Every structure is written in structure tokens, then in C-alpha cells.
């Protein structure tokens, strides 16, 4: 371009120009105006610019991209790992578990007498906050202890003292805040601290002790009265005495 700009002289080769000038001129066809008017009547001209991509690809690519993005978010929503990430023993109850014995002794008027020989009995407290239900089966001896809360939560000391405690969605320790889904298994907690228990008439009788439970003084033959997973407290009865051990 720079070289071209330097050449400011009059173009030469006029013989070539004269030769080109001898070419006959072509004329437009007679129906030229008619076709122009017809095109104008059709409307604005369509761009003749063509693309390297075929038409099908030009339309398919955005569609595929849209589907891919939609699928990604769809699967992400469907298979969200939010629940799976919650630790199994991440128990954080807002209110401590009320031992069954305390509930019974502190609210004697609320106790419905358990008839001797009956297989199932329930014990409820009038407390609106916590409702303790105790179900006793005589043979085989099984103790189901449930602590139900207004929101529908329950603490369940299940069969063979494999207590499981469920924390409802509505219960939150430090409200306000989003409700937490916490699934707590007391049996897992007991197993984690080295306690294996079997059912007995008045609670879970410990059959073997190891790990931190043994270090804390829990012995074989102790009867579990209550389990507080939040504080790691296990209350056992030994020889008529109540012993509380904190297990971490």
C-alpha cells in the first residue's frame, strides 16, 4: 500500500486503455425495469451472504447447546448430593434428650401405670414441648423410647436398645436459619464409642465395652438409661446408681 501511495503519477499504458475502450458495451435486457419493480414489490432483498456451515448445522448447534445446558442443570438438581453430604452422626438437637426415668419421676401425675404383665405401655408427659412415649414389651424384653417434639421429631431408642434418634426438619438449633435435615442414629453413636448393648427389662444392657466407652468407665452389665448424642453423654445404671459418662 505504501508503495502504491508513492506512485502518484498519471497511470501509464494508455495503449492498453485504448484497447480496453474498444470493447462493445452490453445493454440491459428490455424487461430489466419490470424485474426490478417485481423485486421491489417483494420487499427488501434477502442477504445473499452464505455461511460455511450447512443450514441444519447452523440451527442444530444452538439447540444442542441449549439441551446440554438444560440437561446439566436438570441432572444437577435431580442428583443433588446435598443430603448425602450430611454426616450420618451429625446430630445437633436443640433440646436435650429427656431421660425416660427423669420424665417418669418428675411428672408422676402424667404417668399412666404400666399394668403388670402387659406387653405394651406408653408413658406421656403433659409437657407440650416434649412428649415422651415409652413402650415396654415384656417378652421379649424390648424398650422403645421415643421423644416426640411438636414439630414431629422423635427420639427413638429402638429394639434391642439400638436406639435411633431422628431429628425433624423443623427443628433447628440456632434458629433463625434454614432448617437442617439431620438423621441421627443413637445406635451408630453407641457403636462408634465402643458400646454393644442388648435389650433388658428396663433399658439396654451393655454386653461389651471398648474404646472410649471403656476409658470413660462404662462396664459390661450397665444398663443404658439415656443417650444424648449432642453432648456425647450416656447415662447408665449400675447397682441402683446412675452413672453419667461423657463420650467423645
Amino acid at each position, binding site marked *: 500500500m505504501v508503495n502504491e*501511495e508513492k506512485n*502518484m503519477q498519471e497511470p501509464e499504458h494508455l495503449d492498453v486503455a485504448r484497447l480496453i475502450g474498444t470493447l462493445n458495451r*452490453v445493454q440491459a435486457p428490455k424487461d430489466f425495469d419490470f424485474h426490478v419493480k417485481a423485486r421491489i414489490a417483494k420487499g427488501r432483498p434477502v442477504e445473499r451472504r452464505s455461511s460455511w456451515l450447512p443450514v441444519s448445522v447452523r440451527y442444530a448447534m444452538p439447540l444442542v447447546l441449549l439441551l446440554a445446558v438444560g440437561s446439566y442443570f436438570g441432572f444437577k438438581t435431580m442428583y443433588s448430593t446435598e443430603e448425602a453430604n450430611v454426616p450420618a452422626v451429625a446430630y445437633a438437637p436443640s433440646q436435650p434428650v429427656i431421660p425416660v426415668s427423669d420424665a417418669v419421676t418428675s411428672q408422676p401425675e402424667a404417668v399412666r401405670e404400666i399394668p403388670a404383665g402387659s406387653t405394651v405401655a406408653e408413658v406421656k408427659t403433659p409437657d407440650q414441648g416434649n412428649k415422651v412415649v415409652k413402650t415396654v414389651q415384656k417378652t421379649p424384653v424390648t424398650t422403645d423410647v421415643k421423644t416426640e417434639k411438636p414439630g414431629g421429631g422423635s427420639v427413638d431408642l429402638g429394639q434391642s436398645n439400638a436406639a435411633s434418634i431422628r431429628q425433624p426438619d423443623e427443628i433447628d438449633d440456632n434458629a433463625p436459619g434454614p432448617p437442617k435435615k439431620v438423621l441421627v442414629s443413637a445406635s451408630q453413636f453407641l457403636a462408634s464409642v465402643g458400646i454393644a448393648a442388648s435389650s433388658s427389662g428396663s433399658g439396654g444392657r451393655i454386653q461389651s465395652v471398648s474404646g472410649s466407652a471403656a476409658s470413660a468407665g462404662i462396664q459390661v452389665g450397665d444398663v443404658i438409661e439415656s443417650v444424648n448424642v449432642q453432648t456425647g453423654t450416656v447415662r447408665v445404671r449400675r447397682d441402683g446408681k446412675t452413672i453419667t459418662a461423657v463420650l467423645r
Partner: protein
Amino acid sequence: MAFDSTRTFGVGAQRKHMADGKLTDHELVDATRNGDESAFAEIMQRYRNPLTNYLYRFLNDYEEAVDLAQETFVRVYFALDRYHTQYAFSTYIYRIATNLAISEIRRRKRRKLLSLTGLFQGEDDSEVEFQPTDGKILADEELVDDERSQIIAKAIAALPEKYRVPVILRDVEGKSYDEVAQIMELGLGTTKSRISRGRALLKEKLQNYL
């Protein structure tokens, strides 16, 4: 106020009138904008043959030249509102035609690239347009019999775009260097240089006819 404007327009229009009493291009454009279809017909009457000839020399294809010339008028018609009268109308319409022709040539190149190589090649490896034959007589059939004109036309069509446009505008259409420079949106020096270079290339090919 309105009367003054009308008077001013009338005086200006009288001054703009061509010596032979015909309306200027700008007046025709204004009339077309105001809905006068006959004014646009007059524009077509003035430029259809020059444009067709220009595009024919550019593309060396009469049918395509006619098609693009018609397309040029359609585009001009729909773009009249955006046309500024500080530029000559002939410059404006030739620029549109040139852009369309360049686009067409590039489209042909892409088509040629995508087509199966060698299928439509002649014995001398020159490109042969695959077009169905028709019985219509070309407007320049006389040229078909004129070997010299054929060779000249072929030589022009074989020039690179950057040289072909100014050479045709200058030596075929008889435009001034300034007009060619405006149509190509180049400097005057660059335009002259390209014309000179284009002629030199043609001279090499047309030595036998000089």
C-alpha cells in the same frame, strides 16, 4: 416560513437542473423519496445499461451481471432514506454494485472450493462454468464472434479484484480518477497506482493486440 422554504427549494432545484432540462440525480432521488415512482424509473433508465456493462466486465457473466444490476437498484431503492446527497449518486450506486460484485466473486470462490475438484475443468485447466445451456441470444453476441474481444474480456476478468475494479471503472466506464477513488474509497494515489498496475498486467497478456 413554509413559503420561504418552498421558495428556497424551488430556486435550488432550478439551479440544480441539468443544462438539457432534465432533473439531476439528487432531484430524482428526492422525488422518489416523496413517492414518485416515475422518478425512480428515470434513475433506472439512466443507470441500467452502464451498471449492466460494468458488472458484465467485472464478472464476465451476462446473466449474473443483469441479476446483480437489478439487485443494485433494489438495494438503492430501499436505502434511499439513508443516502446523503453530499456524494454523487453515480458514485453511490457504483459502490453498491461493486460491493455486490465482490461478494459474488467471493461466493463463487467458496463454491469452487467446496465443489469436487476437476469435475468441471476443461482440457486447458481453465475454469468452466457449469450452467445449463439456453437458447437465448446474449446481448453481446457480437462479441462472442470476436476473438479479440473475448480475449480482452477474459484478461480483464482474470485480473485480481484490486486491479480489476479501477481498470474497468476508468477504461471501460470512463470514470474520472476522482470518481474511481471515491467509489473504491481509496486515496487518489492508490487508485492511480492500481490502475497503472492493472494495465501493466493486461499489457503482458495482450501483447499480440497492441
